[in-house]
């Protein structure tokens, strides 16, 4: 008697709870991401482009608090240590750099001078000597002027091995050595500058490199070139309380809970060609996971009308927000984040096997496993469509679900045994199951090995790693093919650990092609990279291009001015404003 009651009670509870959610029919609707969008970008040649103020955003008014909801805290705020996407989109609020991007959110980019008057003067036209002249009227958050001394100090401290985490382009180029912190020690030389860096006067900073570095203007768009006065350098503590040179400054920071930025009254809009200062306050709230954050913004209650859910709309909630009233609050754009199935060519030596993998792959099925069209779109090239000069091609046309027969033909009856490495989180293991079922249809024998999520990147970057195939992600730091193809496929830099060329190919003819194209003028390089992309896939097939990540974000109804960065694929805050 009791048992029946108990069972009834529990059963009713469960059915009720499921029934609380409306019983709808799920149908298929088309995706809205423009996969044909290409990125165009130039380095500004007209000094006018680098001058402020930035054009007003139509309809934007000053005032209000803009909130960003994110699950985990931003790993680094110290500009010299920022390298995560959240950090990179957060930094422009409080850190200005020598150069930065003007971005219309639709793929049209212009690299302009931010602290500098131009994106850089190539003094001898050999890309070895660069000069930057700072604008006048630049100030820090406490009112003191920003001079070349502070910019140089910022770059110098990035040599400090305690301040790890940020990009290492400028350091490696100045030291002409991957072990830059052994070439020049920051701690013992705090009053001096690293080799090649000099400040001829208070508004000029000069870079002298041993080799041609035509990408310097791009590299300086990263927060690592942000200025810092030496007496404000608090070492590892700067991570939680940086010193501002931008339109906002950090006023309150509770680690893992809340980060509050308020107006920096010493920022002069007349010197800034990109940023605005509409909201009074910008607040990062940490804690809610992706579903909770998305649900909050979907509900659009009073507090969340001025919020953005940073973790996007997870696949599990997409059906709730597709179409209708949510469209005006949705940011949906392709990103430069490209994912490929890397093939360890040291182990998988047979080209036919690699080509067979390219034919067998079911991209549509993989994307469904990941969550559908709002998470990823298929990609058949090594460089994502957001790269400057992109040209679409498919070296192994297999259709959206793969061409198993063609793969079997190439394998000619063999059943190669391959070990697939995946992260041990839910997404990784499900991807493993998906790929295993997919590839085994063509005759491959796949063993799935899980690696702890935090260790996967480091382990697969080791030259002697024991696996055959795994998924790699690459989001270029700037949208040029020069920061993709040679980095990923030049075999001359292969070392024991920390490789980016995880296919480990080392083809002499290819390497020479890289050298040839890198020496060309940046604007002439673009079509050459596209040609190389096709050539690498056809001749070497070192990977199976899989998909491009899609940005799919939801914000509250009272937020305006948000767009997805064409450089990084995450929401940018330069134009954000709160509607009344």
């Amino acid at each position, binding site marked *: 008697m009791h048992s029946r009651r108990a069972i009834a009670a529990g059963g009713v509870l469960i059915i009720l709870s499921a029934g609380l959610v409306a019983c709808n029919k799920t149908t298929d609707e088309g995706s809205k991401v423009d996969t044909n969008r290409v990125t165009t970008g130039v380095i500004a040649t007209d000094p006018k482009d680098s001058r402020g103020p930035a054009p007003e955003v139509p309809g934007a008014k000053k005032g209000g608090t803009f909130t960003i909801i994110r699950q985990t805290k931003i790993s680094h705020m110290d500009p010299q240590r920022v390298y995560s996407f959240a950090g990179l989109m957060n930094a422009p609020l409080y850190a200005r750099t020598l150069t930065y991007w003007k971005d219309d959110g639709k793929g049209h980019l212009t690299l302009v001078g931010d602290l500098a008057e131009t994106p850089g003067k190539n003094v001898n036209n050999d890309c070895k000597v660069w000069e930057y002249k700072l604008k006048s009227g630049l100030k820090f958050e406490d009112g003191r002027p920003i001079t070349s001394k502070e910019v140089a100090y910022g770059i110098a401290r990035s040599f400090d091995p305690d301040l790890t985490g940020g990009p290492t382009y400028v350091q490696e180029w100045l030291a002409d050595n991957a072990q830059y912190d052994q070439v020049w020690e920051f701690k013992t030389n705090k009053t001096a500058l690293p080799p090649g860096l000099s400040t001829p006067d208070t508004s000029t900073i000069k870079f002298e490199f041993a080799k041609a570095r035509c990408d310097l203007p791009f590299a300086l768009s990263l927060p690592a070139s942000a200025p810092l006065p030496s007496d404000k350098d608090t070492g590892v503590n700067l991570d939680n309380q940086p010193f501002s040179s931008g339109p906002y400054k950090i006023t309150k920071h509770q680690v893992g*809970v809340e980060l509050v930025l308020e107006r920096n009254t010493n920022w002069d809009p007349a010197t800034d060609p990109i940023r605005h200062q509409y909201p009074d306050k910008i607040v990062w709230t940490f804690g809610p996971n992706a579903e909770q954050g998305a649900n909050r913004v979907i509900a659009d209650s009073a507090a969340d009308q001025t919020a953005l859910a940073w973790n996007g709309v997870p696949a599990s909630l997409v059906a709730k927000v597709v179409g209708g009233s949510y469209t005006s609050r949705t940011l949906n754009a392709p990103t430069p984040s490209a994912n490929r199935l890397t093939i360890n060519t040291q182990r998988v030596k047979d080209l036919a096997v690699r080509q067979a993998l390219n034919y067998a792959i079911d991209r549509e099925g993989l994307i469904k496993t990941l969550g559908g069209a709002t998470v990823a779109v298929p990609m058949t090239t090594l460089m994502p469509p957001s790269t400057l000069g992109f040209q679409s091609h498919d070296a192994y046309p297999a259709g959206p679900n793969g061409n198993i027969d063609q793969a079997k033909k190439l394998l000619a009856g063999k059943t190669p045994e391959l070990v697939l490495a995946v992260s041990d989180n839910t997404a990784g293991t499900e991807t493993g199951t998906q790929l295993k079922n997919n590839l085994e249809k063509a005759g491959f024998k796949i063993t799935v090995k899980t690696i*702890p999520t*935090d260790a996967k990147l480091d382990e697969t970057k080791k030259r002697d790693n024991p696996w055959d195939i795994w998924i790699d992600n690459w989001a270029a730091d700037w949208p040029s093919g020069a920061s993709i193809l040679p980095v990923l496929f030049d075999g001359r830099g292969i070392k024991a650990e920390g490789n980016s060329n995880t296919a480990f190919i080392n083809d002499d003819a290819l390497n020479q092609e890289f050298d040839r194209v890198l020496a060309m003028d940046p604007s002439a390089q673009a079509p050459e990279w596209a040609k190389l992309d096709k050539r690498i896939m056809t001749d070497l097939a070192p990977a199976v291009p899989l998909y491009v990540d899609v940005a799919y974000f939801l914000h509250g109804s009272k937020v305006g001015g948000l767009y997805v960065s064409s450089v990084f694929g995450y929401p940018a805050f330069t134009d954000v404003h709160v509607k009344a």
Partner: protein
Amino acid sequence: MFRYLVKRLLSAALTLIAVSVVSFLMFFALPRDPVTGMCPKNCNAERLERVRQELGLNDPKHEQYLGYLKGIFTGRDLGSSQGGRCDAPCLGYSYVNSEAVTDTFGRVLPVTLSVVIPAAVLWLLLGVGLGVVSALRRGTMLDGLSIGFSLTGASMQLYFVGAVLQIVFIYNLKILPVPHYTPLLENPVDWALGLVLAWWALAFLFSAIYARLSRAQMLETLSEDFIRTARAQGQPKSKVYGRHALRAAITPIVTIAGLDVGGALGGTVITETTFGIQGLGRTAVDAVRAGDLPTIMATVLISAAFIVVANIVVDLLYASIDPRVRLR
């Protein structure tokens, strides 16, 4: 009494030391390099080696362990990349969180306490109350309902209950805010609103267990001779049941309650994951996943300390409530 206390404290200290040694060894015995999490994108073998050197990972294991223990009592000097001098009690520096472990705890411990203690009060009141009442009204519909309730609660899963509560109260009825933590002293109302669902989810599950337990205990006590005698003497029902029966029935409940609370304080991982609150449990899980040894060691020690202290408190309570118990 005093001798007993001293004996128990010594035993507790021994337990804590054993726990810390075992966790320490466990993490070094596992095939996981502790420095992998500490050096991101552009690290190479030399820099990793230098990090290892600075962290003292190349010193013999017992030296590392003793240094860690010493730091807890007298403070330690960590390298500049770890913030320099670390005052007692020094629990180390976490690269993953970029802060001293003691700071992490200062943030995270109040959250777990705020989740567990009010929930414990709720589940004890609800559970014991329900159990006692249903024992007194044995056989009636109330008794049947409460048994049904206990069985259901004991068979439910916390993550399920938590998810349903959130969907109903937060997203459908919209009468509660998304679960979050606000310090009690800052805003008591918001503190309560942000955690109330977590309290009720825990209370639903645990009170079921306590209702069952107290009902059984109460029934057993009620059938004892001394109760019959007291009633026969004409003592009022409230005195008989309230003072005599309840007191006798309560002792095993106290034991289990103490252990449950102690255990809950150290391990509310599922609650925190379900409700998206960053407390001690989630911090521990994140630390293990990231290989963050100092945080792991500290969380293990604190959870163990909670349980050990709870054990001692329970034994003392037991002795004071039940005169038949003699502490040896």
